């Protein structure tokens, strides 16, 4: 397996949607290719960091304003 072929299957590997046979081939490639190993690990970490850090907090008061808007809309007819 070449690095290009590995890269084409990177997402499937990360998303755990590869067959056991393909997984074995990918792991075989990883054993001999530090570049692809780094790419895999740091791409996984990229996703994990974005998943675990709230970068846009709900502005204060927005929830209450939305609640009020829905209640006002409801008064016109739920």
């Amino acid at each position, binding site marked *: 397996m070449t690095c290009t072929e590995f*890269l084409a299957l*990177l*997402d499937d590997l990360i998303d755990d949607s590869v067959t056991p046979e393909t997984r074995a081939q990918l792991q075989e490639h990883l054993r001999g290719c530090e570049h692809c190993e780094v790419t895999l690990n740091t791409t996984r970490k990229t*996703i994990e*960091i974005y998943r675990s850090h709230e*970068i*846009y907090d709900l502005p204060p008061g927005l929830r209450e304003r939305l609640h009020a808007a829905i209640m006002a*809309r409801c008064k016109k007819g739920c």
Partner: protein
Amino acid sequence: MSTIQLIAGENEPHPDVALVERVRGGDVLAYDTLVRKYDRQIFRIAQHITQNREDAEDVMQDAFLKAYEKIDQFQGNSKFYTWLVRIAVNESLMRLRKRRTGKMVSIDEDIETDEGSVPRDLADWAPDPEQNYGQAELAEILRKTIQGLPQGFRIVFVLRDVEGLSTEETAETLGLSIPAVKSRLLRARLQLRERLSRYFRRKRGGEK
């Protein structure tokens, strides 16, 4: 109801199904429960697309009001959350169009780039690299980095990886084919990885 139950899961319907039914029956408090469950996600999605806090606030409000008004049109052939996300994505794109006074805005723009498709910066990262930054500094790095992605990649990454939609749900929400979602997701992940490497790469001896 039976259609919704069939789609929602093998055995048990998704808890949103009962809430939606209550809303349809006129229970506005049930809608409040749905709002509080998803308002953070909807705000985040709107902010990622519009890249503007005021617009994101308006989009969130408009999306929830529109969903409330159209709740009878919700067929239950997708999850309530996915349906809501679709409304929020459309509202966000409409808001961008208004801001750009008529210039067409689509999720296809700015994607003709090969940047980051092939990993170049192959330096490994420090272990737990985010620990080297304070919370506020890290959030700023993450915001700046994702804002630099082409919009068509950014939306796919946010829906798929941050908000947890499946590939199929993302494709349906954005009106894209599944191969298009997959291709954009790969490029988005690789570009983000490449850009974050500037901050997170393992420092060599003596390098600050």
